[in-house]
């Protein structure tokens, strides 16, 4: 009896100990110890909530309806095809008030195009443009120009002072309205000044906070050669308008900032949209009436954000680079000007191999940016830095998309299989971490190690 009691006590002590270990491990896995957010971080968090949740009393759309966190803060036909029919993106199919002249559902679903009334609202049936959705990554580096801020595909995407802060005002009027009357207080409410501050803070926090400093010490021969061509102002000439693969130009030795150019995209023959018999007026770009120019997007984020150009006319990255060999570009004002300053009178003339090399370079720097972004997200989830998207699960969820994108952009051109293998490992760790209760943090840390290994396969810097 005494022996039984001693055995029972021993058993109970063991159970207590085991329970304590379980609780400790669970707490270690789930504990969310974060430093107190700064006022700027609080504003950014408020902006994030507005960006993804606030409908401004309109038709149900939010900023996040077209700028999806899961799709690089943009949207494309493949992603659109995964959405349910009652998604607010399709409001023109759901709300009879918006059934005509608000969107073209066919063009939206097939090409990812959104209707914009950039040249006015007086003739909705005939005066409109159809544009893709630009991502909102790296805005900190891609809005300023000597002549003022430049937003959207033609640089004049925001009303009033044209700033990123004002952008949401125009977006609500254009895209959030309940009816084509567009009456503030009836069809939507306009953002308050405080909300504009928060939205701006969130958008500026997305993606890269600074430009690259090229050249990078890349490991692959294709990407290395592509970088040389990119930086060669007598061959690729890419760096003239996309300094350091960003959105800013250096012209005549001067910083021209985020500049506008007429590159002739509108003059491309056999554009996809032309093949389906939809009537879409030519897009005249910046201003009213437009001067035919469009704003320069950053290239670091290009490879995982197809389709390309303002009208989503090119599907592949290699096609987008090859565009600059085309008659459409070389006969455009920008192409002609490049030719006028070339000793041989040539605009841009690359061999097919050179096109592929430049694209390989762009794919690698995109993958490096994916890795940088994923590391930042995972570290945010672990409490090591500000968590832009919120809790650890959401941080890991978005990180997984970043890693998937890196896999896609590299494997899409057969580049760096060893890096791809490490990226696959990293993604598996992130997926496991999201599912795990007890090993969330340790698995997330494993993913960071795999990402570091992947980066080491791409660059020695």
């Amino acid at each position, binding site marked *: 009896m005494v022996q039984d009691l001693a055995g029972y006590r021993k058993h109970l002590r063991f159970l207590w100990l085991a329970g304590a270990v379980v609780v400790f491990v669970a707490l270690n896995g789930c504990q969310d110890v974060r430093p107190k957010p700064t006022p700027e971080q609080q504003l950014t968090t408020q902006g994030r909530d507005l960006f993804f949740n606030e409908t401004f009393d309109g038709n149900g759309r939010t900023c996040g309806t077209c700028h999806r966190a899961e799709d690089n803060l943009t949207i494309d036909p493949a992603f659109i095809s995964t959405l349910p029919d009652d998604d607010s993106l399709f409001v023109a199919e759901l709300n009879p008030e918006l059934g005509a002249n608000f969107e073209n559902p066919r063009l939206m679903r097939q090409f990812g195009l959104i209707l914009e009334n950039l040249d006015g609202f007086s003739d909705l049936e005939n005066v409109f443009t159809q544009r893709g959705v630009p991502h909102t990554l790296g805005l900190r580096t891609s809005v300023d120009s000597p002549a003022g801020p430049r937003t959207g595909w033609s640089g*004049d995407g925001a009303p009033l002072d044209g700033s990123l802060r004002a952008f949401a005002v125009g977006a609500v009027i254009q895209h959030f309205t309940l009816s084509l009357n567009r*009456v503030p207080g009836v069809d939507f409410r306009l953002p308050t000044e405080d909300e504009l501050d928060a939205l701006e803070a969130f958008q500026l926090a997305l993606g890269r906070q600074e430009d690259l400093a090229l050249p990078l010490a890349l490991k692959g021969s294709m990407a290395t050669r592509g970088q040389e061509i990119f930086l060669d102002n007598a061959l690729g000439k890419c760096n003239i308008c996309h300094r350091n693969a960003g959105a800013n130009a250096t012209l005549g030795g*001067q910083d*021209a900032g985020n500049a506008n150019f007429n590159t002739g995209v509108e003059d491309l023959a056999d554009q996809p949209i032309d093949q389906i018999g939809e009537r879409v007026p030519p897009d005249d770009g910046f201003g009213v009436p437009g001067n035919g120019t469009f704003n320069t997007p950053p290239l670091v984020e290009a490879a995982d954000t197809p389709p390309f150009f303002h009208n989503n006319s090119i599907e592949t990255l290699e096609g987008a680079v090859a565009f600059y060999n085309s008659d459409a570009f070389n006969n455009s004002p920008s192409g002609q000007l490049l030719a006028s300053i070339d000793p041989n009178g040539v605009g841009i003339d690359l061999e097919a191999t050179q096109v592929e090399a430049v694209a390989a370079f762009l794919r690698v720097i995109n993958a490096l940016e994916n890795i940088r972004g994923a590391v930042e997200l995972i570290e945010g989830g672990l409490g090591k830095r500000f968590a832009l998207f919120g809790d650890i699960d959401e941080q890991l969820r978005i990180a997984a998309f970043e890693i998937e994108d890196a896999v896609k952009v590299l494997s899409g051109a057969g580049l760096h299989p060893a890096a791809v293998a490490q990226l696959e490992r990293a993604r598996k760790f992130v997926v496991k971490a999201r599912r795990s209760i007890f090993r969330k943090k340790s698995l997330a840390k494993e993913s960071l190690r795999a990402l570091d290994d992947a980066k080491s396969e791409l660059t020695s810097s």
Partner: protein
Amino acid sequence: MRIGLNVLTAMVILFASVADAQEMTERYIPVGAYPSLSSKYMAAGTIVAVDDEARTMTLKDNGSERSFRVTENTKIWLDRSGLGQTTLDGKFPDLATGLKAEVRSLGPGRLDVAYWVKVQIPAP
């Protein structure tokens, strides 16, 4: 080559100067809704004078006055958001003294020419 690039720079800045924002959604923004976002090419105030012959209007705000020429190309918008109704296109005779108004000028070199004028139609 340097001269060509300088020309290109000038073209870029020229292109950038003819307009500085997406003017068209401005049609639906109530007069004076965003003073902190007002462009340097915009002015707001009360219409204190209208000259039919010269087709000019004068805005007064905080004691200072600015006059603008209203050309045939100037867009005139009637802001009826206070009535819960949509903005309408207006005409020069709609620019009456005493109404609150906002003007965007044509920009550098043409600061006295109105690109658009938006007048607030007061609630009855």
